[in-house]
């Protein structure tokens, strides 16, 4: 397949992506306290909002967005990810957000086509 773009435009740019994620999270749950009944909707909103903003970037990438929302209760959580991909073109970014009552962790993986 012929590439009509230079290498600069088709790398995974972390700053752009993290800004998009932060905005989605703030928009969906900023200023709210943890509510069990709304959590399902919040995760869906965050993930779908992020994904639609990412697709608007118009880059030749496939995206995987994962969101974890956890109530603050003193419990611990560890997360790790392992990826088999092309280091020069693919990348990932994780945003950890917290307020007084909950944690939200969003991971985005971008894989070049």
């Amino acid at each position, binding site marked *: 397949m012929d590439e009509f773009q230079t290498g600069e435009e088709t*790398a995974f740019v972390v700053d752009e992506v993290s800004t998009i994620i932060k905005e989605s999270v703030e928009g969906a749950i900023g200023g709210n306290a943890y509510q069990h009944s709304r959590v399902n909707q919040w995760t869906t909103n965050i993930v779908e909002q992020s*994904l639609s903003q990412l697709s608007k970037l118009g880059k030749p990438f496939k995206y995987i967005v994962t969101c974890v929302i956890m109530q603050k209760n003193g419990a611990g959580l560890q997360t790790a990810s392992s990826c088999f991909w092309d280091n020069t073109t693919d990348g990932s970014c994780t945003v950890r957000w917290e307020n007084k009552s909950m944690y939200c962790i969003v991971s985005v993986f971008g894989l070049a086509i």
Partner: protein
Amino acid sequence: MSDLAKEKAARLLKKRGSVSSLGSHDVRAKETRDKTKDSISTVSYIDEPGHHDDNPRPAVQMENTFQLAPYRRFPVLTVNDILKDVLASYLQEEKYEAELCRQMTKTISEVIKARVKDLMVPRYKIIVLISIGQLSDQNMRIGSRCLWDASNDTFSSHTFKNSSLFAVANVYAVYFE
């Protein structure tokens, strides 16, 4: 982590010669912080892609393969079994402890990646995501959405629970066109 499990993992990874952040200390993880009125956010990522100064590889020109779809599809059920197997064997008797589980998540994700790579499914990129958490009175929701080609790309997921911890494993397989 029990010595037996550590040895098992080390042997498996050495055999495959995979690069991981388990033992190496030169993985650069960067973080930036941001604070608003009542929330804090942190961004972290590993070394930016495409900016390697040492030995830049010349852009590889790929020939057309005229291949529209993968010859062999990703075996979801086999991977389900791998996840079940690995999570059960590494976590069956463990209690949640911060340091132990930190190492455990990294080890398990590397082991799962190695075993999925062993399936040798050509042209598929693999992402393995593991979360291990402590069982207490909290509630938690994990969700993910993907923007990809639904006919070729897929994922596999498994949850494990014992008396003091729970573990969630997700494997995403993306076809490289």
